[in-house]
């Protein structure tokens, strides 16, 4: 099974918080309202919600990338 990870383009991100609203279990916000994403792979049960967050990010700043290696 593919191991997927969320990444944010910090230049594009405006801190609108949509990803946090849709993925409260994996996305934290820093003290300034910008998302802190887990470095490791997403639990399989949130991948569908993560795809939704990627497509709904108003700044198109969020991506799902396949993790390579161990």
């Amino acid at each position, binding site marked *: 099974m593919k191991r997927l990870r969320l990444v944010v*383009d*910090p*230049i*594009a*991100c*405006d*801190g609108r918080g949509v990803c946090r609203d849709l993925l409260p279990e994996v996305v934290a916000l*820093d*003290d*300034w*309202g*910008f998302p*802190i994403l887990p470095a490791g792979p997403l639990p399989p049960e949130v991948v569908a919600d993560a795809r939704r967050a990627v497509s709904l990010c108003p700044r198109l700043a969020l991506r799902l990338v396949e993790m390579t290696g161990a």
Partner: protein
Amino acid sequence: MTLLVPPAPVTPPVGPARLIAPDTGPSLGEHLARLGPLPRPTGDLPAMVTAAGVRGRGGAGFPTGTKLAEVAGAGESKYVVANGTEGEPLSAKDRALLTASPHLVLDGMVAAALAVRAGTAILCVSEGRPDVLAAVRRAVAERRDPVEVVVAAVPDRYVAGQETALVNWLSGGDAVPTSGPRPARRGVRGRPTLVDNVETLAHVGLVARFGAGWFRSLGLPEEPGTALVTVAGGVARPGVYEVPIGYPLGQLLARAGAGPVGALAVGGYFGTWIDPVRGLAAPLSDAGLGPLGARLGAGCLAVLPTDSCALAEVAAVADWFAASSAGQCGPCLFGLADLAAAVRWLLAGRPEGAPAADRWSAMVEGRGGCHLPDGAARWVRSALAVLGQEIEWHRAGGCGRPYRGYLPAPVPGGRA
């Protein structure tokens, strides 16, 4: 009958004055008399540079031969960009080099351009350095090169010198960092681009002439060659010194006229505060500085004498970091301002300063589109680690020593 007089054989430089020779002027004639012409063809330059062990002198220390080989193997219509913007406020080495030995940098650019089959080589200098721009333009006008050589005056702020910002600006965009592929793949105008620091390219200009064995005859086996090191701060003879890598740090500070050292940062503002006692005994190399949590980086030493308030200097530079944000990334724009405020709290003796500085330095690290927030985080965190006694004094009412402004913290253009 015409007598063909062969040029006098040139002896490769002996001793550490390789890049900047104190008795040689910047003209093409003096340059050729000292080093001879650049051989053409230069042979397999990526392999020679790899064998020499040249690593990037802009701060990152990436193996230069590897980058040359990558761009050599990538596409057509390529560019070489020589980064002489020197955004690190404490560093003076690149402008010293460009002023004293502009032709050696240009030779390295031309050799690299021929090796990677780039048609254009662009030398980038900050527009805030008109004297350096004049020196390099004068040098370019003296030469006839087999590739197009262009001088570009780049906006004067730290982030403009980040390689993606340079590439974006040279392609017609703003001088701000971008996300996306590395310049070696997609650089100026979308073409594969070799971006190297000007000191790195000057070393390439020497390796092309005198080979890898000569290059390795100074320095350490694992970190060969010489490096230009800027000694800044409270010393009697601040300036740029060329030393073999591995040179004793304490000996260099003695040459620069340092008195009793209260605090010491290696690598400039993008470097690390280290314990001065251990630092003075360390060799100037990654291997020697690694155990102290530092690297040689772009070769920049910040020296604070015992008569000055080190924490106030740290705070002024933390303010500089905040003012240098391009404002593109939230954690940098807001986080560096808060981080600078936390250092001001430490300076004022407020107990919430230390936990706030810890929290915000961790929170900004790795979260920008360029390395500005990482540099700010390292600057503050390493200061907290070695200035514990100072911080205690400030908690107790002050260290009793004045802020002397040894570390310049110019407010970048366009932001008050």
